[in-house]
């Protein structure tokens, strides 16, 4: 048979490919104590692994495991507990913070982590804020910080120009993790690529290849885990490999088939994926990310439909948050209760004001002169009630929202944006509802969305409310932050949470649960207070 020859060649080629394919897989699986974590795609517009500059929450999870902070925050109580600092004191005027450091801590390059190193970090943060025109994410954690000095070999003093009640919590975050201050000799961009980034954590940053992978290796001799972990010594894993998988189904499938150990999505798993994971014997761990909820912010520029307060009020009543949570994420999914997720300190439920009330919404719009036309959508003076809602990689359940608003006669227009457009649409102002959030275990997080003086997007902050309302928000933040009186902080934040809904400034959509699909081979999984990954107690069998 003459055709046997080409057939045999095909078979041989396939066999050769098979051999090299499976061979590569075996080497990767051979090291038993290598933990493999799969994230969704890396940040498309800002690749960064430098603690002070990173806002991407997946990378903050990575940083938590190679760089330690002065303090730690208890996920259960929100209390600040010792870590690199054994104790601290806040001056009565709230402007001087004195930290006593633990002795014997070193960076992974062997240099001592002492008071001078911490003071140099503070100088480095302030310089970075300046170099980036205030855009570096860490800027939001060091408001009012003027510098720090070593007053003893292990005693360091931070100086603030005005009280900042969220500063102590800031010292527990990954953004204020202490790194070898030599890194600040590199430019912000170089540091983002990982150049000179050296922490004192239980892992060492081996390398970061943007959009491809980040690899951590075990730090020998680590012995200063925070009060919140069982294992205060060396990691029980040799290596951790974080990769970025674009397809949700592939990430989940990899977990189920054992190719990865932890599948870490950005938006929560769909009910179907959760079912698949639990059926296979793996676990879905969840915890609400503290800080601003998944929320929509209105464009109240004159002439836009949401400049009309009645329309904003009607919007609250027209959105059925309970059905939204249950349909998009599953029957037992928590319903969002306000501008903040429920794990945020000083959280206050606004459920009553966010209740679904379709007839109420219809009445509000009728009274405001928006009448239903032939196509089912409302109009006033010949202008249809159309709300432009840009769809980004972060969007979830947009079509359901569209269907809900249609009931009230509101035309929610979905416009899918490319990655490039996502980076610039808020500046251009071509939207009515823009989606954003901010993860931090402190309500102060919201001022970086809504306070134009410090916001990451000034344009978004200015468009979200009228100048008078913006001033009201700024005043409440000032009252909450510029004090050392915990009761005043708490009452101001409670007032703020009412005010935001009363004025129609924030439209919360869902509680952001950080989900993690964890393989049954992994034990000791834990979330930090910011719902990031904590690997101190993790083992892999």
């Amino acid at each position, binding site marked *: *048979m*003459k*055709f046997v020859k*080409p*057939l045999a*060649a*095909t078979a041989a*080629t*396939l066999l050769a*490919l*098979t051999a*090299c*394919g*499976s061979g*590569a*897989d075996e080497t990767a699986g051979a090291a038993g104590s290598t933990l493999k974590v*799969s994230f969704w795609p890396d940040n*498309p*517009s*800002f*690749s*960064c692994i430098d603690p002070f*500059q990173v*806002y991407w929450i997946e990378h903050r999870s990575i940083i938590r495991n190679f760089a330690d902070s002065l303090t730690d925050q208890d996920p259960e109580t929100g209390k600040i507990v010792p870590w690199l600092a054994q104790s601290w004191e806040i001056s009565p005027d709230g402007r001087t913070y004195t930290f006593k450091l633990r002795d014997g801590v070193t960076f992974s390059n062997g240099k001592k982590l002492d008071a001078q190193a911490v003071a140099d970090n503070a100088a480095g943060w302030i310089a970075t804020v300046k170099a*980036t*025109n*205030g*855009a*570096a*994410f860490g800027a939001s954690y060091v408001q009012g910080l003027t510098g720090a000095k070593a007053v003893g070999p292990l005693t360091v003093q931070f100086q603030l120009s005005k009280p900042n009640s969220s500063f102590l919590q800031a010292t527990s975050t990954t953004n204020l993790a202490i790194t070898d201050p030599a890194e600040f000799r590199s430019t*912000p*961009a170089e540091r*983002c*690529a990982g150049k000179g980034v050296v922490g004192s954590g239980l892992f060492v940053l081996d390398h970061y290849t943007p*959009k*491809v992978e980040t690899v951590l290796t075990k730090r020998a001799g680590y012995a200063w885990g925070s009060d919140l972990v069982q294992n205060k010594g060396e990691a029980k894993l040799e290596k951790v490999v974080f*990769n*970025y*998988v*674009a*397809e949700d*189904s*592939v990430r989940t*499938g*990899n977990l*189920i*088939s054992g*190719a*990865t150990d932890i599948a870490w999505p950005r938006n929560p798993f769909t009910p179907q994926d959760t079912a698949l994971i639990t059926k296979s014997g793996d676990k879905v761990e969840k915890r609400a990310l503290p800080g601003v909820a998944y929320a929509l912010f209105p464009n109240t520029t004159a002439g836009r439909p949401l400049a009309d307060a009645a329309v904003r009020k009607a919007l609250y009543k027209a959105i059925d948050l309970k059905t939204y949570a249950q349909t998009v994420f599953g029957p037992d999914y928590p319903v969002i209760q306000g501008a903040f997720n429920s794990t945020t300190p000083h959280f206050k439920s606004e459920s009553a004001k966010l209740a679904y009330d379709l007839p109420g919404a219809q009445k509000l719009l009728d009274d405001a002169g928006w009448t239903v036309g032939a196509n089912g959508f409302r109009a006033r003076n010949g202008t249809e009630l159309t709300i432009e809602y840009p769809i980004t990689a972060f969007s979830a359940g947009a079509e359901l929202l569209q269907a809900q608003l249609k009931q009230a006669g509101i035309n929610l227009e979905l416009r899918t944006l*490319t*990655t*490039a*457009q996502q*980076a*610039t649409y808020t*500046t251009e102002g071509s939207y009515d509802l823009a989606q954003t959030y901010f993860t931090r275990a402190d309500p102060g997080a919201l001022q970086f969305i809504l306070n134009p003086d410090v916001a*990451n*997007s*000034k*344009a978004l902050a200015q468009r979200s409310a009228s100048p008078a309302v913006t001033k009201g928000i700024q005043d409440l933040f000032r009252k909450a932050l510029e004090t050392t009186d915990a009761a005043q902080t708490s009452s101001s934040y409670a007032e703020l949470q009412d005010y935001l809904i009363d004025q129609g400034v924030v439209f919360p959509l869902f509680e952001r649960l950080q989900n993690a699909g964890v393989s049954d081979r992994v034990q000791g999984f834990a979330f930090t207070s910011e719902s990031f990954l904590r690997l101190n107690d993790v083992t892999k069998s």
Partner: protein
Amino acid sequence: MTRYVLGRIGQAVVVLWAAYTLTFAILYLLPSDPMELQLAAAGVQPDSLSAGQVAAIKHQFGLDQPIWLQYWHHLSGLLRGDFGTSLTQQVPVSDLLAQRIGPTLLLSVSAALVSLVAGSALAYLATFTRWTVLTRLPAVGASFPQFFIALFLIQFFSFQLGWFPATGGLVLPVITISVLASSVLAQVLIKSFEETLSQPYVVTARAKGLSRSAVHVRHAFRNAALPAMTILGVIVGLTVTSSIVVETVFTREGVGKLAQEAVLSQDVPVVLAVVTVAAAIFVLVNLVVDLLYPLLDPRIAVSGAAR
């Protein structure tokens, strides 16, 4: 012959230049401002800067120059081997390409080889056995979308059987690309086999007492293979374009995935570089095919010389 060769090389250069220029024009017609993207990449919101600062940044990156001057700078940089700097990653594009081209070349070459062998084998079998099922198979293979084949293969071979990894492996991506590429090749080959087999010299060969299989392999295959040579360039091009979908689904860190990311985030220098490199490979393969023709079929060189 020299004229034929020079003509082909000249054509190749023109095609390459046209691909580059067209891409440049399209990218600069897109809505987003490259400066804003660059600022976003540095973590700076453009609206937090004053008009003076914006102007200074525009000047720094040459974005205040007229478009034709920017085009000239890009092109002359390219001729010196300088692809510029990625807008979103702030690293030289040549570094990115160097990192990513290996996996894609491995994938493309493997897929091209598998397609060549599988496509030829299928065409040979189909025409020799004359089974209608086999003759129609390539049409089916060419009709499936690649992402569907990819997800199907992952579901079956990675998640169910656990034979191959769903991310990063080579076998499943090669199969995904080869289904389409080999089908296209087989379609052309089958057609030209059928034409060749109806030629008088085949009848003569059979009349002389040669067996069917001998005629098939010695007389028909060689002649039928000639038109398929043209397809070779297309197959190589196909493996490169397929890499965009395939690398994304299989999370392979190659040039295809780089291109997909760069297009979405409007990273102009990266897109330009990828298109130029891909076009260069495509043009090169076609050039080689063109230059091989006269060696395989003397009639082509003769007609070239007569022109």
